[in-house]
């Protein structure tokens, strides 16, 4: 450390900054010459701004006068690419394969610990598969720090630009994998440069991972069975038309892909939500433009709950592989999830 303030005070000489360099003593305006001209000057400035507000607009950023308001719902400011709001998961447009391999990096780095991942297992061998069985992010506690997106080695988790998330329903802010999935083309539309920088690497890694994924594991839930149809559309649609590229969410598909246990679990969550202050399916949020189905990305699960006759009674097709997934979940993890849910329910009940 160089000089302390006390030492400087001791030397009552000319003003020397601590550490050398220039010092300027600010000029104090002395009263005694003022007959109101100071206020008059200020009034001149203000009336100039007043007049300019009618003529000039925000567009000229080097000008300090002129209307600065952006009238929000009609006019929106262009969001920069790096803008980050809430994390979402990416999947490939053509194959529906998710980029996530459930490496748990994001879960570990997440400062408020709002990411919960369950790894998928091969039903036949019981081995772990590089794909996420379930991926839950509690949006209500997320602090949008973007560390998950930064740390993800597979570029699977990205920060969304959709910010109109306000809702009365806290529990609806818990997003599962189905609600989080976004096609790559969507991300490409909102952040073309950022995606271009990582595209090659990410796609290469995805190709490697897909080889190790049996069946429909790792495919975005609503893309199961739609991949071939979606292919030409996605190919035709450019980056700009990502909204059109997003295939409609097949409502029934989600029930098919679920083990009975999971369906029951979902049902329990929904029941807890229903017990909360707001009715399920009461979508407060305007749909983000990329989600073509018109349903809010957030409320996919809920709207499904409303639309599907009754997921619990729908018999899950005994496609062997899926049934085993729930069983293969470790007890420890289940307990943890259960604890989280209990806490949520308590919270929901308190509201």
């Amino acid at each position, binding site marked *: 450390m160089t000089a302390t303030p006390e030492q400087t005070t001791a030397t009552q000489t000319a003003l020397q900054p601590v550490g050398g360099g220039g010092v300027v003593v600010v000029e104090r305006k002395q009263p005694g*010459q003022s007959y109101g001209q100071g206020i008059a000057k*200020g009034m001149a400035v203000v009336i100039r701004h007043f007049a300019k*507000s*009618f003529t000039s607009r925000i567009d000229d950023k080097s000008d300090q*006068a002129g*209307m600065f308001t952006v009238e929000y719902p009609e006019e929106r400011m262009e969001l920069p690419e790096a803008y980050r709001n809430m994390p979402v998961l990416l999947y490939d447009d053509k194959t529906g394969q998710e980029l996530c391999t459930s490496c748990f990096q994001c879960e570990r780095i997440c400062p408020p610990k709002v990411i919960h991942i369950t790894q998928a297992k091969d039903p036949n061998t019981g081995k772990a598969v590089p794909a996420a069985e379930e991926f839950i992010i509690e949006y209500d506690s997320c602090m949008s720090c973007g560390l998950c997106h930064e740390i993800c080695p597979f570029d699977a988790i990205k920060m969304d630009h959709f910010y109109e998330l306000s809702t009365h329903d806290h529990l609806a802010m818990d997003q599962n994998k189905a609600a989080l999935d976004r096609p790559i083309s969507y991300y490409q539309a909102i952040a073309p440069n950022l995606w271009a920088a990582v595209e090659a690497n990410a796609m290469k890694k995805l190709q490697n991972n897909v080889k190790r994924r049996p069946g429909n594991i790792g495919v975005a839930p609503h893309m199961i069975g739609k991949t071939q149809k979606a292919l030409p559309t996605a190919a035709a649609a450019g980056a700009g038309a990502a909204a059109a590229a997003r295939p409609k969410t097949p409502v029934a598909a989600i029930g098919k892909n679920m083990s009975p246990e999971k369906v029951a679990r979902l049902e329990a969550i929904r029941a807890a939500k229903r017990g909360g202050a707001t009715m399920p399916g009461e979508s407060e949020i305007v749909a983000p433009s990329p989600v073509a189905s018109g349903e809010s990305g957030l409320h996919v699960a809920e709207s499904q709950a409303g639309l599907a006759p009754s997921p619990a009674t729908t018999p899950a097709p005994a496609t062997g592989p899926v049934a085993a997934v729930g069983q293969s979940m470790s007890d420890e993890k289940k307990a943890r999830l259960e604890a989280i849910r209990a806490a949520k329910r308590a919270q929901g009940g308190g509201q």
Partner: protein
Amino acid sequence: MRAMWEFFFGVGWLATLTSYLTITTAILVAGSLVMMLLTWIERRGLGYMQDRKGPNRVGPFGLFQPIAEAIKTITKEDITPTDADRWVHFLAPVVILASTVAAFAVIPWGNLIPVDINVGVLYIVAVSAVHTVGILMAGWASNNKFALLGGMRGVAQAISYEIPQVLSLVSIVMLVGSMSVVDVIQNQMDPYGNILSWHIFTPVGLLSFIVFWIASLAEGERPPFDNPEAESELVAGYMTEYGGMKFAVLFLANYLTNFAICAVTAGVFLGGGNGPGSDIPILGTLLSVFYFLAKSLGLFFVMVWIRGVVPRLRIDELMHFAWKFLLPLALVNIFSTSLWIAIIRWGAEQGMGIAEALGAPGSIARIAVAWVVTAIINVVAFFLVARLNATRGVTTYQATPTAV
């Protein structure tokens, strides 16, 4: 109007009563409408001064915003604090609003004159003095330290600024020779629509205008004299514990006071509804109302403009300003007004034989001399008082700057 009602009723007193009631209702309705317009002007004006739009969602250009707000405040729950003095708390807004509205009785809207009493100018001042009682009631009844402080401040301020306000009006009353508002406006009437006949265009009238305007800003609790409701210090001053409809009434009274100030200023100094063509029988009445409103709203815009610029004075500085700056100026102005009258109108009969040398009373030469003399006196007085205040220190602190 009385004739019209007499035709309907056939009874004299009933017709008189009804015509007065009609006028009262008209004033109240017009006042409320103008108040809505004023809030709109204030917010949009401030918005544009600050490079933003004001409220622009409700109705065209946000013109219906005040209506939306009125509905909101009226439908809100009316809350009286538990420890408040119930009745006084309730009556305070009533007293404030009543005193404010009463002032409108003598303010002519162009050629439309509600009542012309021969002490109209004094009446306005007197009636608006009553609203200090309401402020004190509000401040005390709320049982809140901030409200009490705000009420005390409001009263101290209002009483202090009443003095320069009245004294500046004395000059004008002397010029006119009557205390009737109508006479004051008629005195500025020029058959050729010459605006130079307005009082503000004489040196005496100008200084009087400055003093009156500043004092009125303080009376109307406008920035920079908004100490009674100083938000950053006293939350909302005497209005702190008011909500819902009572607050709406206080708010309405506040803006009506401001409008009354603007209207009086426009009438006394800017010729009221006078303007080109305001003496044509029927069209002239409309024109005069237009002129009157244009002048008043223009003055209100100046209020908004000032609000957009100045910070708030501290309460002691505010008092010093009233007593040490405005009061001497007003007194000097009375002196120069008497000089003005003496030079222009008096002859040997009144002991101004010297002035006869310049010509008959009212001659151009006399006016010119009076102009020069009073202008010199007033300008010198203004700068002298300003300088004295600045060098002797308006602030109370004698804090010697620590030499560092």
